């Protein structure tokens, strides 16, 4: 018989009270874990969607000229001074340390051409990469280009040249087939002609030069700043820019979910802590005589506190485990009904499990310390009189 065994005995004796305490705290912990899990899962999902939703890093030739605007994004002046980017740079981009975070590399060569006497901006692109990058692109007519001689037009450009899918546009001697027309994007893309980048390089004698490279980086698991610096090292003479708007949106989304789940979790833990506090205060009141006896037979104040806090520790540890189980299992059943729009996954998270246990024990001990200290200070004579 030692102090821990005394605590364990009391836990076993008061099964109803123990069950109530464990349930109260476990529900609080479980709800907090569930919220955190759902928050994390939604965060991952949103981050993934955002990662796929356009470029978040631009690679530009270093230039001292004033920047131009492209696609709603501010880019450096192209084709002037500095080292031109080339399609070989794609290989260098792939070589950076965080290459696994690169989702899409979309090089572009921008040239000005004259068609039917009118100047037009032609963007040489890799159609596969471009469609992956710009998931908002929709064809209003025709189909995606599938060969080198195909051309894709923005809605305004198609209207201006009065062409539709199947029509042929002459570039000097070259004949290009209009494969499709983009639906309105509300961006500069509406006035552009998109052609295969290799054809543009060849037709305009640009060798393997590119004007800029857009990257979509999956940055939920990496600091974007690190990637920018890695790319800058890999591409000397180029300017690498993180597109702040996209990143800020991502960070905002991430912080929103974290703050929301954290706030609710803290609230739930406070409520759970209050349950423990009142239940333990009532339990101590119920055990005044027992505490008086312990004092009478030589238990020091520290011994009494230790017995009562050991009980709180075991109860809260168990509640933490049960709460984590509730919190990690319940979203698997709830999510399909409440958040069917998301494809959420809830993998075992050892850090969250440890946090649940630690938080539960902290709440349990914090709620138990006042009743324990109060009990330890009971006058043994007064306590024994309370029959």
């Amino acid at each position: 018989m030692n102090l821990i065994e005394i605590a364990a005995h009391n836990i076993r004796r008061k099964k109803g009270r123990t069950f109530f305490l464990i349930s109260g705290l476990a529900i609080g912990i479980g709800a907090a874990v569930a919220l955190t899990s759902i928050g994390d899962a939604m965060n991952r999902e949103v981050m993934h969607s955002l990662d796929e939703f356009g470029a978040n890093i631009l690679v530009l030739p270093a230039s001292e000229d004033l920047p131009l605007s492209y696609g709603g994004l501010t880019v450096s002046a192209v084709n002037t001074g500095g080292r031109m980017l080339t399609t070989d740079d794609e290989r260098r981009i792939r070589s950076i340390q965080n290459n696994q975070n690169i989702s899409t590399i979309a090089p572009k060569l921008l040239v000005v051409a004259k068609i039917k006497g009118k100047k037009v901006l032609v963007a040489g692109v890799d159609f596969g990469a471009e469609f992956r990058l710009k998931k908002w692109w929709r064809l209003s007519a025709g189909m995606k280009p599938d060969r080198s001689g195909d051309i894709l037009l923005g809605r305004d450009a198609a209207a201006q040249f009065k062409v539709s899918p199947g029509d042929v546009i002459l570039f000097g001697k070259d004949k290009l087939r209009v494969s499709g027309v983009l639906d309105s994007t509300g961006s500069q893309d509406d006035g552009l002609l998109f052609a295969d980048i290799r054809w543009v390089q060849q037709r305009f004698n640009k060798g393997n030069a590119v004007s800029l490279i857009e990257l979509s980086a999956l940055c939920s698991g990496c600091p974007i700043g690190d990637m920018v610096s890695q790319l800058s090292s890999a591409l000397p003479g180029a300017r690498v820019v993180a597109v702040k708007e996209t990143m800020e949106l991502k960070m905002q989304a991430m912080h929103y979910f974290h703050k929301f789940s954290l706030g609710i979790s803290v609230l739930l833990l406070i409520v759970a802590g209050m349950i423990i506090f009142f239940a333990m205060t009532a339990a101590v009141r119920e055990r005044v005589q027992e505490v008086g006896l312990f004092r009478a037979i030589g238990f020091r104040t520290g011994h009494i506190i230790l017995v009562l806090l050991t009980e709180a520790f075991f109860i809260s540890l168990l509640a933490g485990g049960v709460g984590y189980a509730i919190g990690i299992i319940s979203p698997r059943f709830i999510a399909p009904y409440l958040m069917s729009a998301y494809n959420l996954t809830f993998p075992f998270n050892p850090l969250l499990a440890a946090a649940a246990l630690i938080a539960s024990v902290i709440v349990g001990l914090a709620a138990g310390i006042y009743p324990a200290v109060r009990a330890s200070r009971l006058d043994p004579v007064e306590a024994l009189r309370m029959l």
Partner: protein
Amino acid sequence: MSFIELSNASKVYQASEDKYAALNNISLTIGSGEFVAVMGPSGSGKSTLLSIIGGLSRASSGVVSVDGIDLTGLGPNRLADFRREYVGFVFQSFYLVPYLTALENVMLPLAVQPRVNGTRKDRALTALGKVGMDGKSQRLPSQLSGGEQERVAIARALVNQPPLILADEPTGNLDTRTGNHVLDVLAGLHAGGHTIVMVTHNEENARRAGRLVEIRDGEIVNERALPLDKGPRDALHVRPEGPECADVCKFVFRERTRAIRLG
């Protein structure tokens, strides 16, 4: 040399502005190995006297010392150490912990004992054996009769081998026959060398002691030596194997070799 010494000890309780003197300038000495009965009407201060001798509460004024230790100068934890090392309490209401077995109840004082000779369980079983309860060591208090519960409480009081046993109306909740068995146990402990101070209402029970102290209104009004009542002791020897006395008569209190001095 006196083992317990009270010099002008008073205990005053204060509720808001009302003061009540439970003990009023009491001076008393009790020698080592004495068996003293304290008698008096309800509210006379008997239990208060026991509680300040046992370090459960502090005298408001005066000096209370046990074995040369001035209890009035000890803090709460030092007083707890004193109680653990020096005192075994036997209460009228037993105060057994209901969810612990008889054995576990007896082991309780050992739970906070820094050093124990032998295993705690063996010590507790030995103590239970002294009061004839070793056969029921695994029973919960609710499964024991009143007399058996009191004997378990006595085993708990002596498991630490304290020199001083303080019994507060130990037969108060028992019928006469069972009460006599409990008194036999206390007499056996006295024979083994324990100093015993027993509070009682019952004059017949008081005759088991060697000295009677009578208290009234917080003051000692009479103090006299008693011839030890041989009746129950003889009865004890007549029935040495009786279920109620068991090994008590064989029990010889080991010489106190406690080196721990408090204060």
